[in-house]
């Protein structure tokens, strides 16, 4: 369901297109051998090429090319066997060459598609316009000196994939779903770590509004949004701003706007008239990028199973619900974890444990899946103890908490604390008899039709056995005795 802004003159539709910049997972930069590790000391990952020293020349990093092709294949896009690097010319202190090497007219990847799933389960297909490779710029730091701007060139020359969508998105929710899905795909592919906090993924958001059925309106672009929340907030603010202008009889100026996350508003950075003339032209230092079908096929053969296919398989083969499958495949790590747990076990039970108590405990202990103290095998062993009746479901929840807190495995905790479920009918029967004898009045009431008292008797038996009695066995023995 798209976002609708109800204006005085009628309903407005919001139209959104995204340009996502995804940092290519690669040990070196797009055109130099410098390292790309995040968080290194300033200006320690800078080669003569990255600093644009005189006479230095770019040499394409083949890994980055492969990653771009892999991503294109993951987006079911057309791979262009001939593409060209262009120079985008502009002056800025953190752009050492005075131009960014990018791809303008002939990108490495052409049109593709991606599906997004919305909360109500609706599936939408979003068009991908293109994907191209380009260099990142360095970073200007304005707050470390009272009068000077400092420049860190660690990012200068880092390989980025710019992935451009068609204006197919209709709400902030869809935009967020798109970015999430894209992030999921590149992480599955291993072509980008998708880490928005570290700037590995950021989006330029184009927003316009129109009356339903009208032509596309004039768009404004908001640059460099680095969180899902900001993307959505910026869209809401910007769409409403545009509707207000149009309803007041004004016109939208095509411009680049800045989203101020502190004030929660967008403001003009530069108008179309002030836009840079980038003077694109093919970079004469680089040959056109060319490869053959065999190269593409080789990469295709190595593609991992992507979220859509994995989800379909989970539903079809493992018989888990659409919702659970969706949750499990969103992150490759979760899906992998699930598959280890579910191997040789009840898939549905495994899914429930992971999505429920396991995630709950991760959150409680401020852990993430990457540093979970409870491995997939340990969780599986716990589920086995429930399944074979060694412990009750309720006890298992407590054991899992203990596992998170101590790092011990389930069997050890059950042993240590004597949590083993009692299925010995003799012991349970004895307990039942004692309790019935002590509560004859309640037995009368039960027999008189107060069925609810069954729960009371079960609870008493459990209490008497220290919670260790197998609830199934208790029920089985208790009912005939009460019924008399």
């Amino acid at each position, binding site marked *: 369901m798209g976002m609708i802004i109800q204006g005085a003159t009628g309903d407005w539709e919001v139209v959104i297109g995204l340009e996502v910049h995804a940092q290519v997972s690669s040990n070196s930069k797009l055109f130099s051998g410098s390292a790309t590790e995040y968080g290194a000391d300033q200006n320690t990952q800078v080669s003569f090429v990255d600093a644009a020293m*005189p*006479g230095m020349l770019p040499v394409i990093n083949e890994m980055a090319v492969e990653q771009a092709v892999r991503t294109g294949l993951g987006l079911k896009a057309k791979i262009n066997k001939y593409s060209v690097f262009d120079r985008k010319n502009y002056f800025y202190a953190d752009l050492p060459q005075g131009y960014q090497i990018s791809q303008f007219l002939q990108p490495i990847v052409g049109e593709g598609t991606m599906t997004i799933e919305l909360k109500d389960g609706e599936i939408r297909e979003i068009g991908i316009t293109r994907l191209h490779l380009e260099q990142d710029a360095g970073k200007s730091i304005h707050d470390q000196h009272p009068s000077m701007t400092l420049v860190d060139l660690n990012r200068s020359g880092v390989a980025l994939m710019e992935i451009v969508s068609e204006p197919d998105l209709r709400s902030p929710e869809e935009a967020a779903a798109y970015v999430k899905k894209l992030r999921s795909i590149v992480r599955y592919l291993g072509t980008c770590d998708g880490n928005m906090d570290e700037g590995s993924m950021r989006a330029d958001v184009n927003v316009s509004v129109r009356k339903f059925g009208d032509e596309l309106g004039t768009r404004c672009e908001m640059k460099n949004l680095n969180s899902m929340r900001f993307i959505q907030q910026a869209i809401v603010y910007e769409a409403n701003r545009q509707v207000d202008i149009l309803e007041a009889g004004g016109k939208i100026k095509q411009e680049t706007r800045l989203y101020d996350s502190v004030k929660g508003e967008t403001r003009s950075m530069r108008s179309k008239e002030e836009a840079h003339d980038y*003077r694109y032209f093919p970079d*004469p230092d*680089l*040959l056109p990028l060319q490869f053959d079908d065999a190269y593409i096929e080789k990469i295709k053969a190595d593609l991992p199973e992507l979220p859509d296919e994995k989800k379909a398989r989970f539903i079809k083969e493992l018989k888990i619900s659409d919702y659970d499958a969706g949750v499990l495949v969103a992150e490759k790590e979760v899906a992998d974890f699930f598959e280890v747990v579910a191997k040789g076990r009840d898939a549905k039970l495994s899914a429930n444990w992971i999505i429920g108590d396991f995630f709950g405990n991760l959150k409680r202990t401020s852990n993430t899946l990457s540093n979970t103290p409870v491995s997939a095998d340990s969780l599986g062993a716990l589920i086995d103890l429930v399944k074979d009746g060694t412990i009750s479901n309720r006890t298992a929840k407590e054991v899992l908490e203990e596992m998170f807190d101590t790092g011990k495995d389930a069997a050890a905790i059950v042993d240590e604390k004597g949590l083993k479920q009692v299925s010995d009918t003799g012991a349970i029967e004895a307990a039942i008899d004692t309790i019935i004898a002590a509560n004859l009045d309640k037995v009368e009431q039960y027999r008189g039709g107060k069925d609810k008292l069954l729960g009371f008797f079960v609870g008493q038996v459990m209490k008497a056995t220290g919670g260790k009695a197998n609830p199934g066995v208790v029920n089985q023995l208790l009912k005939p005795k009460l019924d008399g």
Partner: protein
Amino acid sequence: MSDLTKLKISEARDGLKEGKFSSRELIAAHLTAMGSAKGMNAFITETLDKAVDGATKSDDRRAKGDVGKLEGIPLAIKDLFCTKGVLTTAGSHILDGFTPQYESTVTTNLWNEGAVMLGKVNLDEFAMGSSNETSFYGNVVNPWRRTTDDQPLVPGGSSGGSASAVASNIAMGATGTDTGGSIRQPAAFTGIVGMKPTYGRCSRWGVVAFASSLDQAGPMTRSVQDAAIMLEAMCGFDPKDSTSVDMAVPNFEAALTGDIRGLKVGIPKEYRLDGISSEISALWEKGIEWLKNAGAEIVDISLPHTKYALPAYYIIAPAEASSNLARYDGVRFGLRVEGESLDDMYSKTRGEGFGEEVKRRLLIGTYALSAGYYDAYYLKAQKVRARIADDFKEAYKSVDVILTPTTPSAAFAFGEKGDDPLEMYLNDVFTVPASLAGLPGISVPAGLSADGLPLGLQILGRPFDEETVLRAAGVLEKAAEFTATPTAWWRG
């Protein structure tokens, strides 16, 4: 001992091998020559200590039997090549104080073959010019003077310092770079041999860029054989330059067999320009005669798009330069003139740092790439360039090499062509087409003008067929018997 500075590289190689003199003695003679020729202003930076040290090490290597192709040979390096720890200026104020922490591939190759650097030689600013009048470090003076007057003459450009240093026996050879004729034209103006190899033969890594798709390094020497020796040492595939070509380096010297019987030599009719001096035309005829007498077959050919070469070149080269020179922004190295804001700092730095000719070309290039003009200028020029390359491809179906004059006139006096940039640009009319097509070309001194100035003939070849070009040039050189030398006015 006779004057060691008069030796050719091939002769010095023999003398060193036979132990007639040491590299130290050879270098010392050249340093003395360098010291007495300051008036020529060929050098921006003299590296005396480095030269003496290099010669000593070379002699040590020789003693151990470790002898490179240019072992102990003194060379001058155009100040467009980055040299580790040695000021590199590109003839520009904007590179004030720039001392690279790296060595260009071409010079690395030369040092690996035992060559010794005398210093960094003057050039037109960023190699933009045909007279060496645009250098921030002042004009280089041609060692030659007319017999009719005593006016100082230009050495040509942009490799003017290289040409003058070699022609005046300060250096046995020099590196040059050729974008539209910057090796061949000054070689012709100073009576030496200058060769631009095929684009991609020499690495551009570490060479300050002017126009990336055209720039190519090459040797400037006093004989064709020396050019072959030096080219072999400096070229070769370099993975650090994506446009460098992965091909084996032939033994160029071995190609100088002196035998061109049956070689087909093309004479392009479009190079018979109006306004070309009658001396140049006559020399061209002589050249044709010499090659014919040596057994070559002369074939009239047509290169129909020749007249569009200069206009296309003066779009493409400035367009690339406008982008290549954006890195000189005062932020990281070289000159910075402080300003009120970043933009103001840029304007002031680039305003003061670049000279008039560089600014002119940056403006032309920026304009040619601008939105709305790109198709009409840059794209059109690229189409013309493709046609010109096709012209040559077609011609090389019927000929092996092409013979033309190198320049439309002999060296001129300072200021003579300074007022009209277009007139200056015409200097490159015979050299630019081969640059646009990326072809190898060589200029060989072939005669003197009526007023005693050297004139050159140019031989162009097929891509990566430097061997045939050198062989034909060797025959031309032998037939021309060019032995004239400039009078050493600079010592007086």
